[in-house]
């Protein structure tokens, strides 16, 4: 059927569009130091412990993107969605001055999560950039002006 072909074509085209976007590679522009893996894991451990207090304002207060932190906190389900167990880190990757730890685990309601806990070095100071490690947001790096961001569409989960 032509209509079915059209739908298929649209999906294929959409896939192609996504595939093209995959071609972009993160730029590593930083002259800043990169937060080490061990330092990033230590920062995550501290945040895991802090999250158990279930105080969003306190949790997000020292996060660089505190608005985004509060927003993601709420989107995931609020305090009741915070796992009591620390996540399993399946990947640690540096994007310039950013470092993302891929966190895997299960929320109290039984739903799995896969998210990136992102830290960075800014002016020599390590700060938490994206803090909701039990959420759903992944992170694909830093892109210079005009470069093509990478999409996560179709990427296999790491968890």
């Amino acid at each position, binding site marked *: 059927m*032509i209509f079915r072909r*059209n739908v298929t074509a649209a999906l294929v085209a*959409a896939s192609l*569009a996504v595939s093209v976007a995959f071609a972009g590679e993160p730029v590593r522009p930083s002259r800043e130091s990169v937060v080490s893996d061990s330092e990033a894991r230590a920062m995550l451990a501290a945040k895991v412990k802090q999250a158990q207090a279930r105080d969003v304002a306190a949790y997000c207060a020292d996060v660089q993107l505190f*608005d985004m932190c509060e927003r993601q906190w709420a*989107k995931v389900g609020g305090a009741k969605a915070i796992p009591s167990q620390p996540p399993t880190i399946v990947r640690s990757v540096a994007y310039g001055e950013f470092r993302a730890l891929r966190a895997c685990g299960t929320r109290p309601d039984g*739903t799995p999560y896969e998210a990136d806990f992102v830290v960075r070095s800014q002016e020599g100071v390590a700060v938490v950039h994206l803090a909701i490690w039990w959420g759903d947001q992944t992170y694909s*790096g830093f892109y*210079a002006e005009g470069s093509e961001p990478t999409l996560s569409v*179709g990427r296999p989960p790491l968890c």
Partner: protein
Amino acid sequence: MRHPTHRKRPQRRLICGLVTAAAVVVSALTVPVGASAEDPRILSTTVVFPTGQPAAGAEVELVTGTSDPAADGTPLTIMKAVADANGAVSFDVPATPELIDRAQHEGGRLRTVLSSTARQGTVEQAEADLSLYFKRVSTVWLTYEPQSGTFSVPVVDVQALRPLPVFDATVIEQLGETTLAQVGTLADMSSPWVLHLKSRLEAEMAKRGYIANNDALAYNVNTLDGTMTWVTYSPQTIIARPVTLPGEEFEYGTYEILPMTTRGIPAVDTTDAGDAVDDVALTAGADTTSKKERGRWGRHDNDCFTAGVSNSNGPRSERTVCWQIDHQVMDTTKGRSYWQYEMDASGAGVRGNKMSKLWVHSRPYFEKAASQYRDGQNIPTHTYSSTEGCDTSTDEISVESGSPIKIGAKHRWTRTTCETYSPKAYSNSGEHASIWYGNDSVKELVYRHVAMKTPVYTATSAGSPLWHAWSGQWVSSGG
């Protein structure tokens, strides 16, 4: 080729035989074929179809004696026949004195129009295929040769029955009985017959309810091959039902809709001079193959990334953008899929640069994915600004929207009054922007946050929606 069984009057007849053959090029030259000593004015014409396909069941009409369109030409004979199993059809046309007189009156030529219409299979099948078969009209000039008393056919230029699929690669959504087709780019049309055709087509489409929303149709006709591009501007869609229009209702060519190409649409006006602008575009789409149910919504896809304005000295600004697409699962509305698309960004100027504008902006990727329909209000819907001076305060906006299921959360929006957070709505369903317009007192490394949520639904059969996901910043030095 003669078909004697159709000869009711063997003398003074013009026989036009229509035979399907696997020829490729039509320029069948048949001068005077079949003229015999017994009846010098009997002429047989063989018309070769170019498609190589049998046209069994094709309705063929032969109109003899028409004049040029500009002249007053009342047809002298109008005959119809149905092609046989071999795709052949013949007409017995008497070469009457009237025909001869008309030919002599019009410079020795007699214009005959041979038109054919065919469908493949049943009407239902054709509708299911969204194929449209139009009548193909060919002009046959019969030249009267007084000395021999015969008509000759110098050239038969017939493209015959070439079924052109309409909406091919352009149907983007099938929603109930409604088909959305996207088309675009057009050229001017000015020839009288194109204008005539447009009016007929438009009237027919409107009468049948294929056109809605007062879409302004425009057409681009290729007079060489007879194809027509059928386009409309705002809102860049034609709403039409799957159609199989009877070919006999349209003449002068075949029609097809070409896909729309949309390029270079700016995210937000970027015409302000002086500031550096970064407007990163990506395409965010849903992955229907990896459903994860969360509540009554299935998470489909999401990502965050950081971008920014840079120059040779390094970054001047940065923003981290997150987007997320949720697809409602356990939906009970037959034929519809519900989606919510969210973007937010936190950005700041860096290295002594000041951010003067920050935005996120989504535009449905109409060209490649399912059409979207509004399903509630985009969030935020109101501009937040101050008339009471500049103080830091905390406010909340709702970022929950959509029906029948509402999700989301209250978003505590820390803002400095005298700053303006503004939504920007577009005519396209699903296109929305949220913009922060800057504040001179906001220094470097002071982050501002913009967010939006767009609830839409799509036809389930149309697949997943995609968005152009734009975000951007302006920065200026100093601060």
